[in-house]
């Protein structure tokens, strides 16, 4: 089963995503900040990571770097409210960049797209 890690500091939002993604048929793990996410990536094998940018303890960019240095190939989607905040590093390392909205359809579509691209390139 496809395993996804959702990294989001707002608990309510995080659980909402997890529920919705479980309904789509994915196996979902959750992390509340960058630091926990990095720990989880060390011990688990994920098919995809969904990463928020603004978080306490360790922010998304730092976490992104740490996750990638553990696993160069891991697919990552940046999911953030800051539509203008696109760092060069994120653009060139993340597989996709999605702006938060009340509707999760765009995120779900991107997840499918990224996973499909990955299985194609394999």
């Amino acid at each position, binding site marked *: 089963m496809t395993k996804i890690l959702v990294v989001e500091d707002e608990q309510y939002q995080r659980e909402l995503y997890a529920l919705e993604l479980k309904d789509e048929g994915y196996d979902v793990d959750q992390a509340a900040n960058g630091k926990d996410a990095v720990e989880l990536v060390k011990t688990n094998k994920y098919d995809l990571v969904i990463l928020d940018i603004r978080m306490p303890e360790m922010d998304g960019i730092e976490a992104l*770097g740490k996750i*990638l*240095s553990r696993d*160069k190939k891991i697919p990552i989607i940046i999911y953030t409210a800051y539509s203008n905040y696109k760092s*060069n*590093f994120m653009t*060139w*390392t993340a597989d996709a960049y999605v702006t938060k909205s009340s509707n999760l359809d765009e995120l779900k579509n991107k997840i499918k797209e990224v996973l499909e691209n990955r299985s194609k390139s394999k």
Partner: protein
Amino acid sequence: MSKYGVSLILLVEDEAIIAMEEAMILRSEGYEVVQAFSGEEAVLIAGRRNASIDMILMDIDLGSGIDGTEAARQILEFCDIPIVFLSSHTEKEIVDKTEKITSYGYIVKNFPPIILNTSIKMAHKLYLEKKRVKESNDALAEMNENLKAVNSELIKWRLEEEKRSKELRESDRRFRSIVEGAPVPIFIQTDKKFAFLNHTALKLFGAVDHAELIGKNVFERFHPDYHDKINERIKKINEKGSPVRDFFKQRFIRLDGSEVWVETVGEPVEYEGKKGAIVFAREIAAASNAGDALLAEESHYDSLFENNHAVMLLIDPESGQIYDSNPAAVRFYGWTREEICRMKISEINTLSIEEIKAEMNLAVKLKRNHFHFKHRLADGSVRNVEVYSGPITVKGKHLLYSIVYDITERLAAEDKIKALLAEKEIIVKEVHHRVKNNLNTICSFLNLQSAKSTNPETHEALSEACGRVRSMGILYERLSFSEYDGKMRVNEYFPALIRNITEAFGLGEEILIESVFDESEIKTKTMFSLGIIVTELVSNSIKYAFSDKKYGKITVRIYSDKEKFYLLVSDNGSGIDEAENVSGLGMRLVEMLVQQMDAKMKRSNEGGTNYEISFVPEP
């Protein structure tokens, strides 16, 4: 958008403002840029995007994290992207550090766009070249094997050739001993001088030793009454190459002054590389006894025909019927003497009548004294033969004698050698091409280095070095286009060299270089030396001769007479101060080369500076 095959560049630079500026220059030059602000970021981005990144420009000093060389090392572990290092440092250790990694060059910061472009272009070329070299190394190894085969084939051929020439000498010796011992006076004249006399001929002339006659004019021994007629006969032999077989009665003058009546016939012959005639004589008085003459003729026939190791046939020219064959022919063809004598020559010669006619016409046209035929042997095989043919009278019958040489193996060996030589030539050209490319690369490196240098002396020294390297590069370029025989025509190389010098100095109308080169050929090794000498002397003139003049003219001439080659370089400038310049590296180089070539150099200050270098070329 792609430039020089590079479209996306990963720029690794920790100082944000510098990074911005560098990215801006790169973008304005038409590249797409990804930026990384630390070594770690660079490794991660390269890890994610290595398929689309064409090149990495890597700062060496990257602040707190891993440095550029370490980042490069990590990146090269998992992918193969050309990396060019950027730094404001020029310390040797740092440069050395980058050299340990697969490096594609090194740029000092604050680069002007042209340096950047050249470096990127070169790094990319180098990268492609490295890839290609890897592939072509295998091909080269194979070529080497072929070359070895060529060499061993050549050696084999040489050994065979030596063996053949030994055999030839042997048969020559045998021929001499036969003729020498023949009871008929026989002598050979070339250029109307005695070149050879057999024993009987010496006796006829009343000489004891060869030295008394060899090299002497034959006409001294012919009675003056016959000189006109003899001249006619010699003319016929020399010019038409046809024998004079009608017996010519005349008197020889012996060394003691007495006269002796003889009858002579002559055949054209090539002796010691010269054309001449072999003359058979017989004393008329002594030959009055017919029985003796017949006996003499038979023993003559036996010694020339029966005992000869060359394959010989006697043929009736009318019917083509073979009249006789010698033991050597029996061995060669594999039929018995009786079998051969029942055959016609057309049963042995496999060419059609038309082909035979064509070959005979060709032989006349090429002034060959032999024909190329294909002869059939008893075992059914067909051999390529050279046939030497001429008329002969045996026991009153007019026949045609044919001496047959088997040249099948020689032809096969010649073909093989031709093919191998052609292959060798291709390999040599390829090597020249590569050398040329390498020299050009070196030259670009020197140019880069020169452009980056702030010290005018260093700058100039590097430009000069570059000029020298380029002059050799041009030579190799010409070599890779020309037929390889170790020599080259002067006007194939020097015009390009002069053009190159003109461009290198950016000469406008103020200095005119006039050059005249003839078509003479020089060994490529000498050509190298001359190329550098011309480069140095012309550069010197450009730099020093016209400092107080507005317009100048430099003349370069290379020409040759029968013995020597001459190189003239002169200018109409202010002339050289003896003390100055001569100590420079350029002039030292010239003097060394002049010495090496065993040439003579003259310098004069008349109306400017004039150099004349003359030398005897190696053969």
